Structure formats: structure tokens, C-alpha cells
């Protein structure tokens, strides 16, 4: 968000943030960050971040400054090639900014060890091709990796967490099925379950529904909404404005690596902004209190 937008958003979710520890519930509940001041800080922040993939290469992101309020659901919206995935990889720590800084819960990202960072920030990738046919339960259990040493094996407590996570996303009945035999939506839910087992408070998701049919899309969105209600911070990328409209509290609108707007969903998803971003006639209407984006024929 812009600084102002972030403040507003932070106010909106302040009650969630303060109660983080209680809201999650169960063993998979959100672990409170250390120190009250951290709870007040935005979950994620990019400050004057630019990124290029190599010397002389064009900038993929330029002067990006956004804040993501704790406990909010934020959509990073833009057309193909706008820099959404790069932004997500920067938030994940997979890429280092060429200039500027990334902050996680008020601390510079580079202050975290990789393991500590993965306990705070989890990833739900666009798709997760699994080379070997792990069962759904074995796959979800991989989320314990940040909590286990190099030579450790997961124990009964880890297994119980995985079973609980599968229950949360509605995959208990499929726990012995091989992951490659799942439908697209079920596979995405299994990936979300793995992120729950990881117990990260921030969830990054890259185009979570891009290859799913409407029924599976709804399944995944319901789970993401549930996570948002529980106080987890969710950031997802999408090229579909209606997906952003469906569940996001805030939207970051990207075009050619620059932030065009970053504010509440209603503020960003306007006819003028979207028409300018996508270079085509777009109308935004209200349906059941949510914006609905309709392209002109």
C-alpha cells in the first residue's frame, strides 16, 4: 500500500492483528511475533525497490514502495509481464532487490536466516509438479521442513499437524491418495495445507487459481478467505481483476514494473484505472457490495 493506504488498512485490521495468537485456533494457529512493536509493523514492506535480472537488463520493477498490513488479504494485480511474480519472489526472499529494501514484520528481510524467514513467510505456488508420487499426507508433512534439522525425521506431533491441516482444507478423505492423481483444485488445496503445516503467518500465492475451473477456483478462494479471517496475511498475484475483487482487502496495481495504485479494493478497481492499465475498455459495476469488472465488447 501507499503509506496512507497502509495506515488505513492497518486500522481496519488492527483488531485482527492484536488477536493474532488467539484467532488461529488449534495447533496450526498463528504464532505471535516476538514483541508488541512487531505486531504493529506491516507484515511486509517494499521500500524503493527496483529489480533487474542482470547488469544492463531492463528493470522488471522500478521504485516500488508498498506496505502490506498484518492480517490483510492483498492482491497484486497486473497484466502478463507486469512484474507480479518478481515482486512475489522478492517478498519470499528468493530474489534480492537491486536497490531498496524488503522488510518482514518491521525487520529487514536479510536479518532473517533462511529458516527463520520460512517460518514467517510461506509460499503457495501457481502449480506444484511433484516428480514422485507422494501421498497427500506425506506432501503436507513437507511443511515441517523449516522446523526440523537437516537429519531430523518428522514425528507424531508433526504428523498430527499435517492431519489437522488436511482437515482444515477438506482433504482428510484423500490423505492416502498420490498427489499427481488429484484434481487441480485438490492439488492446490494440498499445497495450501502444506503452507499451513509450515505455520507461517504470511502466505504468498502466485496465481492461485489461474488453471482451475470455477468449482475448484471457489474451493481455493474459500480457503484463502478463511485464512484471512483467521488473521493470516495473504498476498496473491493475479491477472484477473475479478479474483482481486472477490477476496482482496487491498489491491496493488502493477504496470510495466511500476505501482499505479495501492489502496483498498474499492479505491483501486475503478473503470478509469483498469481501462488505463489493461489498455482496453473496462467497466466496473457493483454486485452484492463487491466490484465486478466487465470488459467492453
Amino acid at each position, binding site marked *: 500500500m501507499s503509506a496512507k493506504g497502509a495506515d488505513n488498512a492497518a486500522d481496519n485490521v488492527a483488531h485482527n492483528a492484536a488477536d493474532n495468537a488467539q484467532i488461529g485456533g488449534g495447533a496450526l494457529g498463528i504464532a505471535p511475533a516476538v514483541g508488541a512493536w512487531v505486531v504493529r509493523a506491516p507484515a511486509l514492506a517494499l521500500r524503493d525497490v527496483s529489480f533487474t535480472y542482470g547488469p544492463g537488463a531492463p528493470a522488471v520493477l522500478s521504485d516500488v514502495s508498498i506496505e502490506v498490513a498484518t492480517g490483510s488479504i492483498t492482491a497484486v494485480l497486473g497484466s502478463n509481464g507486469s512484474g507480479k511474480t518478481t515482486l512475489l*519472489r522478492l517478498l*519470499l*526472499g*528468493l530474489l534480492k532487490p537491486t536497490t531498496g529494501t524488503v522488510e518482514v514484520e518491521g525487520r529487514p528481510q536479510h536479518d532473517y536466516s*533462511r*529458516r527463520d*524467514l*520460512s*517460518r514467517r*513467510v*510461506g*509460499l503457495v*505456488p501457481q502449480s*506444484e*509438479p*511433484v*516428480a*514422485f*508420487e*507422494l*501421498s*497427500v*499426507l*506425506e506432501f503436507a508433512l*513437507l*511443511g515441517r*521442513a*523449516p522446523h*526440523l534439522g*537437516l*537429519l*531430523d*525425521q*518428522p514425528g507424531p506431533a508433526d504428523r498430527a499437524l499435517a492431519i489437522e491441516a488436511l482437515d482444515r482444507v477438506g482433504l482428510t478423505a484423500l*490423505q*492416502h*491418495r*498420490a*498427489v499427481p*492423481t488429484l484434481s487441480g483444485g485438490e492439488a492446490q488445496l494440498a499445497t495450501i495445507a502444506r503452507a499451513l503445516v*509450515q505455520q507461517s503467518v504470511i502466505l*504468498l500465492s502466485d496465481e492461485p487459481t489461474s488453471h482451475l475451473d470455477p468449482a475448484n477456483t471457489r474451493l481455493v478462494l474459500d480457503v484463502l478467505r478463511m485464512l484471512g479471517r483467521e488473521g493470516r496475511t495473504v498476498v496473491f498475484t493475479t491477472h484477473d481483476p475479478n479474483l482481486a475483487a472477490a477476496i482482496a482487502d487491498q489491491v496493488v496495481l502493477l504496470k510495466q514494473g511500476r505501482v499505479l495504485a495501492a489502496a483498498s479494493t474499492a479505491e483501486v478497481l475503478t473503470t478509469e484505472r483498469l481501462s488505463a492499465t489493461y489498455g482496453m475498455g473496462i467497466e466496473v459495476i457493483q454486485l452484492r457490495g463487491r466490484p465486478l469488472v466487465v470488459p467492453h465488447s
Partner: protein
Amino acid sequence: MSAERRGCDERRASRRLWAIAGLLFVCALVSAALGRYPGPFLTPPAALFHDELARNLILNLRVPRILAALLLGATLGGSGAVLQMVFRNPLVDSGFLGVSPGAAFGASLAIVFLGGAPAAVQGSAAAFALLGMAASYLIAQRIRFGDWVLRLVLAGIIVSATLSSATGALKYLADPLKQLPDITFWMLGGLWAITWRDVLHIAPVVLPCLVVLHLMRWRLNVLSLRDETAFSLGVAPGRERLVIVVVAVAATAAVVSKAGQIGWVGLIVPHIARRLVGSDARRALPASMLLGTIFVLACDDVARTLLNGEIPLGLLTSFVGALFFLGVVLRRQAAVRS
């Protein structure tokens, strides 16, 4: 439906793992009794007490050979499973990354230029197996496209082709009456020359490597994910994969230096293991090690007892492995059609 396809009930998979371990125990006992003295195929247990030659044969030839087969099979099966998971490719084995071509080149070099003494051949084979892997790694680091796995695959192909060509040149230079047969025989692979001393040479390298791989078995599941996902789970995918590959290759180099090229074990055994106990490396890795030992032991039993002369072990493992692989491929095709 195989355990691999439906995922795997853990208790059933564990029972199967124990059954495989039991089968290995039986195979080892039977192998000790198999031979061509005093008569073909079976040596009666009583001969251990009454026949000094039989006792010597069993204790000083068969037992070290069985132990070498156990180390060889566990290493090839285990490292095959490890490499397949680390490279996220079920068609990879320890012949990958320039390891086997490196060992073949090292052995040929020692035969042609270093007099062909066994110690020189084994040392040179092990050294070039490791060098083959190191060269693959260094080249992979200089490739500027694709993810780490793709870069390493491409580098492995380049190094393997180069070393195979160099081995061909050595064969061309070799004395056709003495050196060339030695090279050919080494490449066919076998355990006919194994002694207690050989077992004691390779065991201190192989056993710690196998223990490390076994301890890291669950981590292999994480490393079989894409780099981005593994990173998000707190893993350093490049560094951890490298450690595991070096350990697997070190063990392979040690056994290959003594046994020559034994093909297909590392490729097919992990497939069988996954079908029996599922794909979770917590069970698939030990199952691959155990099944690798059973496979090598069985092939070696046939190699030394079927005929009056020795059948090269590598020839048998390749033949059986290729037949099995054909079965797997045809069965998959049928499954797709039906």
C-alpha cells in the same frame, strides 16, 4: 494399483520394508551356500565343519564377495534413489554426472599408462569418478540458463561424452593382446577378484556415506520439490543437493573402483522400491538399498554358479535391468491405453 500410485498406507509399507530386509537375510545365507564346490550349486552346511577347503572357500572367498555385493548393491540402489530424487528425474542413476564414464576413463588410463596394477586401477577409477562429477558441477555453474537441475544434466551429458571419447582413444592406444582385454573386462564389471582386504578398503568409505544418506532421507522429499518451493521451506536447495550428491558419488566411486561398471541397478531398483513401499524417501531409500543388495547378490550368485566360468556381473545386471525396464515401459503404455 501399486503403492506408488495410490500413495501408500504407512503401516503396510513398513511391513513390506521389513519383509524385504528378511528376504535379504535369507538371500545372504543362501548365497553363502551357493557355489560349485564340492558339487555344483549347493554346499552342504556340514562341509563347513568337515571340509577345510569348503570352509576356506566360504570364509575367504564367498563371504567377502557377499559383503562386497551387499555394499555394491546398497550403494548403487541407494545412490540411484538419491540422485533420482535430487534431480527430480526417475530416469537418473549413478552413471549420471560423468561418474561412471569418469571411472571407466580412470581405470583405462591406469591399465594403459600406469602398468595396470589393481591398486592403481582402483585408485584411478575412484579419482576420475569424482573428477567427472566435479567437472559436471563446475560446468553447470558456468551455464547461464535453466534451473540448477537442467544445468547439471546438460553438464553431465557434456562431461560423459567427453570422457567416453577419451576412453575410446585409450582403447585405441591400448595393447590389443594384453591391455585391451583388461579394459574390456573391467568395464564388464564383476566381483570375482574381491578379497577381505578389498571389503575393508571400501567399507570405511561406503558405510558412513550410506548412513549419512539414510539420515537425510526425509530431507530428500523436500529436495525433490522445485527450487522455489524448497527455498520457501527453509532449505538451501543448491547447497544441500550438492552435499547429498557428493556423498552418493563418493560411495559409488568407492564401489565402482573395485567392481567395475555395474549398470542399471541404480536405475531400476528405486522404481521397484517405490512400487513396493511408496515414494516417501523415508521408506523408498532404505528399500532401494535393501533391494539393490538383493538384486546384486542374486545376479552375482548366477554369475559365479551358473557356468563353470564366471559371467561378468555387469553384463547380467544390464540384461536383467533392461528386461525389467522394458516390462515397466510396456505396462505403462497398456495402462494409458486401457
